[in-house]
């Protein structure tokens, strides 16, 4: 495990513990390589008060490589979240930047929830879920909609 990996994750962990952004709660960080984080739907949105769990898995090459992020257990019904927990969000794949952090990813996902106007599954949900590999980073994503 590289020095930069440990140092960076420790710092992010401390930040999240001491000043977590609104709606982000650390759930389980027993393993530094795999975090579980709860996010809470913002007030006056379709997901008001609902709690969802995100699982972050970090490769040794983090933060040069993006983390693998999926919903586990209860998965929100949303046009960009597939029912197997995969998330269609460009910064998790092609547009990842090493300057992004766990907390900025959480905030992006909360804002995706907040701007949603209709609880529906993605159009190609069934087909995708049937074909997809376990790791969403192995999917070739196309990012067509930047409104939600």
């Amino acid at each position: 495990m590289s020095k930069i990996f440990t140092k960076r994750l420790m710092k992010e962990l401390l930040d999240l513990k001491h000043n977590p952004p609104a709606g982000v709660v650390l759930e389980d960080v027993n393993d530094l390589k795999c975090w579980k984080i709860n996010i809470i739907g913002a007030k006056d949105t379709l997901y008001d008060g609902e709690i969802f769990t995100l699982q972050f898995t970090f490769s040794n090459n983090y933060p040069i490589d993006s983390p693998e992020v999926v919903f586990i257990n209860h998965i929100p019904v949303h046009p960009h979240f597939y029912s197997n927990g995969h998330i269609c969000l460009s910064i998790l794949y092609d547009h990842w930047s090493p300057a992004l952090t766990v907390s900025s990813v959480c905030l992006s996902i909360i804002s995706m929830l907040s701007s949603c106007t209709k609880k529906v599954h993605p159009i190609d949900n069934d087909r995708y879920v049937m074909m997809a590999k376990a790791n969403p980073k192995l999917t070739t994503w196309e990012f067509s909609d930047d409104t939600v």
Partner: protein
Amino acid sequence: MSDIDFDEGDDDFLYDESGEDYLDESGEDYLDELDFTEIIQEKQERKKYEVEYKVYSIEEIEDFQNKEIEHVANIIGCFKEHAATLLRHFKWNKERLIELYMDRTEEVTKEAGVIVDAQKLPKLIKVEDFCCDICCDSGDDIESLALSCGHRFCKDCYSQYLTQKIKVEGECRNIQCPSDACNIIVDENTIKMLVSEDTYHRYTSLLIRTYVDDNIFLHWCPAPNCEYAVECKIHDSDLQRLVPTVKCKCGHQFCFGCGLPDHQPCICSLVAKWLNKCRDDSETANWISVNTKECPKCKASIEKNGGCNHMTCKKCKNEFCWVCMGPWSEHGNQWYTCNRFEEKTSVDARDSQSRSRAKLERYLHYYNRYANHEQSAKLDTELYEKTERKMERMQKSSELSWIEVQFLKEAVETVVQCRNTLKWTYSFAFYLQKDNQTTLFEDNQRDLEMAVEQLSELLEEEIKPNRIAELKQRVVDKSIYVKHRREILLEDTAQGLKESRWVFIDP
């Protein structure tokens, strides 16, 4: 300023006229300098079916790029690094870059990911109270670097980031600043400064690769391990009118249009169609033709594997008689025997059947000849290898010199080349509409074919040491004749393509 205006207008004109990337003054000078005489010679000797092209080595391409970069850097007055990024963004279309840059500098640079105003090039420095956003290291003693966008990261993170982009993701001209949502491109100089020599080498070879891939007039030679690129000023729309066969310095002869091995005189679109058809059809079609009949209604192929003559098509449920192919409903009570062979409905059914069979027969006619030449070319090469060994033995036992036993090699090369041409004439003919023009084509084809078969036969003759001079004479004479016939056929076909004399059908 007036100088620049002139340049712009001039370039614009050239661009519109030819749609070419670098046929400007400096580019032309460069080409001429290389081998002026060769181009003149080519022009004089070029046959109607040949195209003008040039083969470049990687060094020549690099050299050319550097000149282009320098030229642009001088015109717009910026660092070479920035000029390179701009040129790469515009896929080396210098005229367009300069034109747009003069009109809308800000927009263009923003889109390309360059900040040209920057006074300094990025370099590693130590900043007081610095904290790297990637590794979270902080202190006064850390070497760090920022592009002209100002996003500063430490040296280690930067080089790890760049190495990942180059080695793992295979990126080169699109490596952006590591900061989120910043599209400033990391320039070549910065990369050289930050990554290992090995990685930098990989980076430059990727750059060359994308340069060739971006340029529609440049293609890599498809031969394995060949590192030459061929330049040919042919547009996609020209491919209906000519077959741009080029020969790389490595010896591989291929079509510039589609990258497949030489397929004179058949044009690319027909070649693609033909290969596709052959892949799906040939053997299966043969079997179907022999063993099945078609349902008179839906044309599905049916194999009768037993039972009576009352057929019910599995696909469309049409009921018909296997013997006369007429509808079963008209057979009334005459179950299991058919004496209705001349009834109109059944004659019609059989007619349409035979038409579609004729189509198949036609295809197989051309396919078999096509496949035959392909196979024969292989056999000819094998035969040659055997003969060559024999010749070597003979050379040792007789007084013949090495050069004197070389005539067979040339003859075999001619036969193989002509067989390849003949092969494609059959695919070409398959798509030709039958008219007076085609008759001419077929005559040429026949003459070449006859000549090739005769030469091929000569090659099979037993070689006796005392008659070798005579054989040599015959082989050389025949080879010259065969080459001549091939030229006639190709010239006429090329001329026909140019004049749109050939009418193609979709059989």
